[in-house]
């Protein structure tokens, strides 16, 4: 089943990656003149990065999933706002996405879960197939692609996938969800040099100091005390 009836997605160049709203064909300069339409948190979001491998549909899916898994609150902006989808785009475009360090010789019979990943797909192909199947399932169940669902329906859809209750074509939803959660959290918690974790939002949230991580004296000085120095990224030392 295709999604032809729904208008194609164009990322809103003003809103950034944090929201998935209806398409806007407004060029950035003009859009900037109408800020009143913009929800407050996203208005401060950075401009979206150009996509390397993801389609607009796939990108919108990852943004919506990251926003649901890591919602914006007083602790941090949302996963999408932090650049998780940009992180995923770059990961899937590169060596990892194309099957680096993955043994890919056949045959590929189905294996017990304890034997680990046994599909012939590399991560790029896995998410391409998985997102298509997930959107197909949400269209059947909710009448819309995942990224166009209400917040409550998005949460319910993710929960169904997590519990293995979403009937997705050619892919167990539990397996898809686990991979989605993994790469989303990688994006949120990795060093910002990879495109996610913008402004070290997740590190500030938990109190992880990042670099340079030389604590020979601090391990004594901060014994039992909160370490209060602001985090620094690889980029700060490069």
């Amino acid at each position, binding site marked *: 089943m295709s999604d032809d009836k729904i208008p194609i997605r164009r990322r809103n160049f003003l809103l950034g990656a944090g929201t998935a709203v209806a398409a806007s064909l407004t060029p950035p300069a003009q859009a900037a003149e109408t800020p009143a339409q913009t929800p407050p948190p996203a208005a401060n979001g950075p401009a979206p990065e150009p996509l390397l491998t993801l389609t607009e549909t796939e990108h919108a899916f990852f943004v919506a999933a990251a926003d*649901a*898994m*890591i*919602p914006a*609150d007083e*602790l*941090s902006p949302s996963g999408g706002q932090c650049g998780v989808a940009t992180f995923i785009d770059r990961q899937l475009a590169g060596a*990892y996405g194309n*099957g*680096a*360090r*993955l*043994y*890919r*010789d056949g*045959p590929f*019979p189905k*294996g*017990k*879960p*304890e*034997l*680990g*990943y*046994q599909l012939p797909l590399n991560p790029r192909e896995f998410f391409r197939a998985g997102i298509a199947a997930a959107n197909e399932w949400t269209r059947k169940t909710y009448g819309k692609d995942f990224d166009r669902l209400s917040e409550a329906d998005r*949460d319910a859809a*993710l929960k169904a996938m997590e519990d293995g209750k979403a009937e997705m074509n050619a892919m167990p939803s539990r397996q898809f969800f686990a991979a989605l*959660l993994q790469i*989303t*959290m*990688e994006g949120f*918690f*990795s*060093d910002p*040099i*990879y495109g996610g974790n913008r402004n070290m939002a997740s*590190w500030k*949230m*938990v*109190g*992880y*100091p*990042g*670099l*340079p*991580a*030389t*604590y*020979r004296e*601090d*391990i*004594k000085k*901060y014994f*039992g005390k*909160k*370490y209060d120095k602001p985090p620094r990224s*690889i980029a*700060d*030392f*490069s």
Partner: protein
Amino acid sequence: MTITLKETDAVVVGVGWTGSIMARELTKAGLNVVGLERGAKRMPRDNFTIPSVRDDLKYAVRQELFQDAQLETVSLRHSPSETALPIRRLGSFLPGTDLGGAGSHWNGMTWRILPSDHKLRSHLTERYGKNAIPEEMTVEDFPVSYDELEPYYDKFEKLCGVSGKAGNLRGKIIDGGNVFEGPRQNDYPNPPLTRSMAGTIMEKASRDLGYHPFPAPSSNASEVYTNFEGLTLGACEYCGHCERFGCEANAKASPNVCILPALLADPKFELRTYAQVKELVYDKAAKKVTAVRYVDTRTGEEYEQPAGLVILGAYVFNNTLLMLTAGIGEPYDYKTGKGAVGKNYCYQVSGNSVTVFFGDKEINPFMASGAHGVLIDDFNGDNFDHAGLGFFGGAWIQAGPTNGRPIATRPVPPGTPAWGREWKKATAQWYNHAFNIGASGCNYAHRENFLDLDPTYRDALGRPLIRMSYNFRDNDRKLADYIGGVLGRLAKAMNPTHMSTPSTQRGDYNVVPYQSTHNTGGTMTGTDPKTSVVNRYLQAWNADNLFVVGASVFPQNASYNPTGIVGALSYYAAEAITTKYLKSPGPLVHA
């Protein structure tokens, strides 16, 4: 076409800990040695520098320093009645590659096994009766006793500048060290590392329960240290990037820091990188390995390197693979119990852990080294009475984080969802207020746990993958249940705000979550050529110029991380070669 090279005195297959030690000792004895390393030349000053060395995604998650599973992996089946499937992405264990091997990215736990571990079968039989060991538990004695190996343990500890505290110095028991260890002639070369908050909590809880806590024996130098090779280790920075990473401070002992600068400067040693050994050339009638064949992985060109002496210093799987493909010794048959190559493959029972949460304590988990915890050995090996328990062996138990790298380390209390608002709140709240108590359990050999050649799947050189037939068995599961109980008692004694339910080992062996890179066996050492592959000097029974060095010679796995034992056995074997074999080449043990 294979290009045949000029014969050398000795060739070493794999240049990690064992290959480096063997090559160093053989060149010191005057031999010309060629070291064949499948990976690249990797040295800390070029490869492990700030800021890139602190890249959690690249090293810890995307596996930068490990064997490339795309080229080489192993297959697994839980029992011989199943069809094995390849481990397509490394997870449960992470063998190294490149110069220095896994010695670059280990955590640094450096142990001696217990005197009773050295003579496991005789010890259990003596203490619990001659029928006590179940028939399917094919444990054996190490042919080398603790006392015989003691000077070599000592030497390896001095090579690495191990930090720790003796618990048994020449028979004198010392509180604060491991009081269960075998007698040592010397204390550790360095004092223990600075204790963390988690370690302090562990120490108190253990003492309250009457146990005997001690600091982890750690190859993360607590002080600047110069070893007997004249090479200097820096002092540990507690950076929390130890396991899976190289060390920018040169504080973590590795072949690259502790031995290779001296070896590479010796004109008697020639390192060849990108040289992957494909097979051994075996003259069965003469009982000699005459050469090794390797592929230059940059060009695909194949070479034959003739050598007077061949040292296998690859990881467990390749050591076993090279023996099986060359037909050296009899492959193990689980049905008859005959043959020894591939027999007694063991791992580690390390599924046990409990997480404790303290609302009022700042843990700072990111200030840590890889071997930095406080441990107890009260429930390890045969340190406690097993009468009536229904299992043998035990585990070391440790508390203290090795890192706070948040891609993987962000504990939340039990019942917290894995994502969404509640997850986020709990993650922010508890990140700095929790740590694990973990255990590493013995894994005793079982008749149906073994290695052989996979009939279907092949590596990038076209060789069959090693096929692992392996699962946790009755002994392992009972052991894990018992240790889970101890973990629960320890956690409760810490009086935490929350604690998780101690995990055990009930399910099948799962290749996905990391457990340990402590794979052992396949070319076991013993006293009988029918039931072992190498003799006490690690010399192959069926090829007297071939020595197999590494954890592949273990008859079973004690609970302890294997590197200390592997290092000691390397020095022991090297001395046998230089003082006995070179004077009179031939079998060193007549069976």
